[in-house]
């Protein structure tokens, strides 16, 4: 049984269809990269997977005891967050918000969980610092720690390395990879960086006019991937 299954999914907004006939599944421990051109519906897909947006058709099914609210999420940064006066501690702790239900405050376990995740992301020294004063890479690690507070099973990342310098980028990729390999957390990541996708992921979902879903090796052998890779080289 897969953690997440998409069955004949059609995506879009305001009645305009962007993608249709999406069929894929994510099993526990997978590392799936979603690639595709700008505007091909990657972020819309992610929002649909999270239940933030209803699909135009088809179904998103969760399995293996995964509840929708147990998916950790690393969104693209919003304008609001850039100058938000909040400490690292406050932000990471807010990842536990889905667990509290109607209880107004966080309990000991949740605080301990936040502390563990801060340490895991190597942010222990920055716990009391203000979020907006951190570097881009540090900010992403804070949001990753927050996502880990919301899940033990699966994280969805929406272009996590956008705007980072190469060093911070590689560090973040390593961190995500270690979460996948060592902690067994299922990773679904949107990325433009096809090289990193081929290095880290074991499954690839390519969306656009045509859709490909399969393992990395299958993807590399498909003619369609090769044209995309060539096209990428030609442009870049």
């Amino acid at each position, binding site marked *: 049984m897969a953690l997440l299954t998409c069955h004949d999914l059609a995506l879009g907004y305001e009645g305009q269809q962007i993608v249709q006939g999406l069929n894929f599944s994510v099993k526990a421990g997978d590392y799936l990269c979603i690639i595709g051109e700008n505007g091909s519906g990657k972020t819309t897909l992610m929002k649909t997977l999270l239940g933030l947006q209803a699909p135009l058709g088809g179904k998103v099914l969760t399995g293996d005891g995964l509840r929708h609210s147990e998916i950790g999420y690393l969104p693209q940064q919003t304008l609001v967050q850039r100058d938000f006066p909040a400490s690292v501690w406050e932000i990471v702790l807010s990842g536990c918000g*889905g667990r509290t239900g109607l209880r107004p405050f966080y309990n000991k376990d949740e605080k301990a969980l936040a502390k563990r995740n801060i340490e895991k992301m190597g942010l222990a020294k920055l716990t009391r610092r203000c979020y907006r004063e951190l570097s881009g890479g540090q900010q992403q690690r804070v949001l990753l720690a927050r996502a880990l507070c919301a899940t033990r099973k699966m994280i969805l990342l929406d272009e996590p390395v956008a705007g980072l310098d190469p060093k911070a980028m590689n560090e973040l990729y390593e961190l995500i990879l270690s979460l996948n390999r060592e902690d067994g957390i299922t990773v679904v990541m949107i990325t433009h960086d096809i090289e990193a996708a081929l290095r880290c992921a074991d499954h690839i979902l390519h969306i656009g006019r045509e859709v490909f879903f399969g393992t990395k090796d299958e993807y590399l052998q498909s003619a369609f991937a090769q044209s995309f890779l060539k096209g990428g080289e030609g442009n870049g």
Partner: protein
Amino acid sequence: MAELFDKLSLYLQYPFVRYALIVGVLIALCSSLLGVTLVLKRFSFIGDGLSHVAFGAMAVGAVVGLTNEMPLVLAVTVISAVLLLRTGQNTRIKGDAAVAMISVGALAIGYLLMNLFSKSSNLSGDVCSTLFGSTSILTLSQAEVWLCVALSVLVAAVFVFFYNKIFSVTFDEAFARATGIRAGLYNLLIAIVTAVIIVLAMNLVGSLLISALVIFPALSAMRVFKNFKAVTVCSALFSVTCALIGLLTAILAGTPVGSTIVAVDILGFLIFCLIGRVKGGIKA
């Protein structure tokens, strides 16, 4: 100086002065609590917009001849607040434009109605006092004070109880929603509480100056503090202090209450800017 204190203690013997102080402090407290969230959500102008809606509703109430306009004004304002804050990012008319549209629209219609149908002989005086608050805070009845106390306590309680959820929803609505926090519900709550505060605050500073009560404490606190809790606490203290100083000054010097409070807020903001600058300078 002693003379001033004598004058003050004389004034404080009048119940209406005490009422004004109590209500003023409570309103300042509530508006500053919500202010932090509203400013961060880029809704600084919602106070302005909603207060104009309240003005319009008040005008309609006056024209229809209601003796107690409060329920109508409150209902209309709450509905507008819900509509405005609900829109979010995926609407045709963006947040700021929607606020501006409703704000001027309600102001114009309100004034038009008052002009066409008013039985009062001092129309411009009426309008001016609704817009700038004038003296109505000094003419509160005991019942109004109790209503205000009850609503303020409710607002503060809601804020404390849902503090962590409000933080999550303000910082990152998509994440909050994805992890099972009912963001829609909390946005609705924020909208309703905002409307209640604005209707309350109209007595204090009037329609035109309400934004000041919402914005200045939050912005001042953000100059100096860098985590959400400190900013919230500081903005509450800032707002209460400024309201007290403003009210006392207005009573002693006979200046208009609303604009005096706002003037003190501006002064406070400048001081906090300076503190922030100095603090930042030391660190750098």
